């Protein structure tokens, strides 16, 4: 196998699982709460900085910092739900007010990160260091960990939604909110739970990815935009769509990058998406408003 090909495949699978991991949280929240959470990148950043703080200021190992970062991100997302989302649930203007609130939270988080830390790039150590080469391509062990984690989380979320009482309740709420409340399912509390789970996923992505991209106050922005694209490509609210679209776009982007150069990667992805949306306006697995989790 040529080095180029292996490089493209490896990069594609790695990108794909990263995109999928970020998109999973976005698509869950959209599917269940009908909330377009533009603070998803900010939650990613909160998780990363908390982990950075634990590692560099408290001098604890990254394996301790990881769960703390994830919990902090989940708690931050839940707090966002309590203060900004819950008060407007079921009110007219929910879409607009939550859109503005989540953008506002993003701006506030990056400003806070600059004030508390500083705008310089930070380094979070990988969970596993080291790498090996395959056809002259460097495969990092952290990269393999990211791929494995992402796939495992998709499986976990799928099993949770399909077989557990609370997971089924999330689907029930997303499909027919009024009936769910008549079945004694606490709708608002279920929303809070979904938002916290999504926050934990974003925080985990933040801690695992920062060794690749470095950490700065805006480092959640690009992953969030990519995740948004993946979510739209896969069909808003579809978990399967997020998984498939993450890998399709990741691998496509990586091949374009390796064979035609970095400059073509983003335009190539957008071209692919535009073509796909002409054929399937609701995304790969979306069937409009009807399709829920």
């Amino acid at each position: 196998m040529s080095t180029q090909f292996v490089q493209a495949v490896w990069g594609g699978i790695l990108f794909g699982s990263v995109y999928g991991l970020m998109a999973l949280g976005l698509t869950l929240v959209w599917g269940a709460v009908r909330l377009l959470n533009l603070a998803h990148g900010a939650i990613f950043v909160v998780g990363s900085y908390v982990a950075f703080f634990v590692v560099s200021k408290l001098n604890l190992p990254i394996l301790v910092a990881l769960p703390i970062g994830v919990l902090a991100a989940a708690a931050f997302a839940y707090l966002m739900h309590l203060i900004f989302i819950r008060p407007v649930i079921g009110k007219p203007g929910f879409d607009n007010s939550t859109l503005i609130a989540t953008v506002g939270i993003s701006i506030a988080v990056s400003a806070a990160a600059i004030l508390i830390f500083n705008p310089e790039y930070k380094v979070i150590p990988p969970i596993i260091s080291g790498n090996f080469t395959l056809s002259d391509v460097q495969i990092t062990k952290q990269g393999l960990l990211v791929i494995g984690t992402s796939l495992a989380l998709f499986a976990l979320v799928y099993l949770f939604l399909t077989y557990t009482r609370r997971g089924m309740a999330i689907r029930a709420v997303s499909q027919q909110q009024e009936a769910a409340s008549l079945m004694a399912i606490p709708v608002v509390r279920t929303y809070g739970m979904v938002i916290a789970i999504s926050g934990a996923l974003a925080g985990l992505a933040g801690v695992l990815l920062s060794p690749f991209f470095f950490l700065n106050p805006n480092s959640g922005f690009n992953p969030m935009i990519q995740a948004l694209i993946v979510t739209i490509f896969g069909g808003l609210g579809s978990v399967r769509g997020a998984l498939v679209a993450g890998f399709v776009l990741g691998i496509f982007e990586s091949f374009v990058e390796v064979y035609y150069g970095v400059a073509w990667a983003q335009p190539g992805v957008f071209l692919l998406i535009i073509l796909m949306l002409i054929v399937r306006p609701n995304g790969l697995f979306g069937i409009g408003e009807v399709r829920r989790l």
Partner: protein
Amino acid sequence: MLEVKGLVAGYAGSEVLHGIDLEVNEGEGVIVLGPNGHGKSTLLRAVTGLLSPRAGQVLLDGKDITRWRPDAIAAAGLVHIPQGDLLFPEMTVTENLLMGAYHGPTWSERSARLGRVYELFPWLKERGGQLARTLSGGERRMLALGRGLMSKAKLLLIDEPSLGLAPLTTQQIYASIHKVKESGLSLLIADENANHVAGLADRVYLLETGSLVRQGPADELLRDKALLESYLG
């Protein structure tokens, strides 16, 4: 068990119910009869918290539940089977039923209830794995009824059990509601057809333009053909 006092409710700009007084006792079958558009659904929605009343009180076993959220009212035992069934379309028949027993029981208790519902509607068991959105109108209604029965209801509120169904299916639906009544569950049924509910009713209320105009024992009221004719048309 259920007491409604001076209930006033409506939607933006228009008052639909103008002070309703109604009660349902333990084990009783109570029917609210009225033509379409006179507030039957609004009454059930206001009782189970889907619509917040403007005035009046709803009491369950003496406890004021007027401002409770729908999920809390359902958990307290008032289980509402709404018009249009409102199934979970992308969930299977079995999953829909299990959601009916969301509150309270353990998984073994849930499967015991599932067994009882399957006894009542053997058909639901055969179709267990089918998605709810692929069912026909009559099948949906049975599933909605079965899902309501999965809960630990004290009182089942059913909105127009036969709305939009073919005559044969209508018969099946009322036959199964009969069995439910015999099991001792209290019922509050909103309907527009006196013949359908004749065997189910202990007491009847007549609802007209948002007010209860008559009430009485079923044998008395439902036998008065002249009254029903003038009233339901």
